[in-house]
C-alpha cells in the first residue's frame, strides 16, 4: 500500500487525527503536544500518528496538503493545518460545531 493510500485509510478511520512528532503518550515536539492538549479540552477521541522516523509518510502528507510543517490535523477527513489555525477558528467559535458534526451530534 502506498503512503498516500495508507494516509487516506487512516484519516477515514479516525474522525480526529494528528500527524505529529512522537506519540500521544510521548510527544517529541512542542507543537505536537500543544495540538494534543488542544483536543484533550474537547474530550472527543483522537489519535496521533508518529511521523518522526517516517520520511515517506511525511513527504506524502506535505504533497497531499501543500503544507510544509508538522503537526498536521485532519477532522472528519478534512485537513485543518495545526493549532495556529485551530486556535483562530476556536476564537471565532468554529471548532465546537465542527467537532459536533464530525461525531454526529450536529
Amino acid at each position: 500500500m502506498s503512503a498516500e493510500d495508507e494516509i487516506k485509510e487512516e484519516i477515514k478511520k479516525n474522525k480526529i487525527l494528528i500527524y505529529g512528532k512522537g506519540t500521544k503518550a510521548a510527544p517529541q515536539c512542542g507543537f505536537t503536544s500543544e495540538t494534543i492538549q488542544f483536543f484533550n479540552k474537547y474530550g472527543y477521541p483522537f489519535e496521533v500518528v508518529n511521523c518522526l522516523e517516517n520520511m515517506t509518510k511525511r513527504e506524502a502528507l506535505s504533497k497531499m496538503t501543500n503544507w510544509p510543517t508538522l503537526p498536521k490535523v485532519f477532522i472528519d477527513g478534512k485537513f485543518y493545518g495545526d493549532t495556529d489555525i485551530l486556535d483562530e477558528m476556536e476564537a471565532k467559535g468554529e471548532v465546537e460545531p465542527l467537532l459536533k458534526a464530525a461525531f454526529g451530534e450536529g
Partner: protein
Amino acid sequence: MIRIPDLIALVQKEIPDAEVNALDKTGMSDHFIIHVTSKEFVDKDVMERHRLVQSCLTAAMQDGRIHAAEIKTAVPGE
C-alpha cells in the same frame, strides 16, 4: 536566521497592505510568532489566510532562514 525587517518585507511583498508584527521567540532569529493584519483576509477563511502568509515564507522556510513560524492573522478592526 533572518532579521525581522527582512521577514516583514517578505510578507509585504505579497501582501502590500499588511501590518506585520514579528516576535523572535527564542532569541535565535529563526523561530518567530508573526501577526499579520490585512484587508486581503476579509473574504478568506482561516486556512486560506494562513496559506497566503505561508506562501510568503516558503523560500525562507526551505533555505533555513526561518525554522518555525507561528502565524496569527486578522483583518483591520477585527
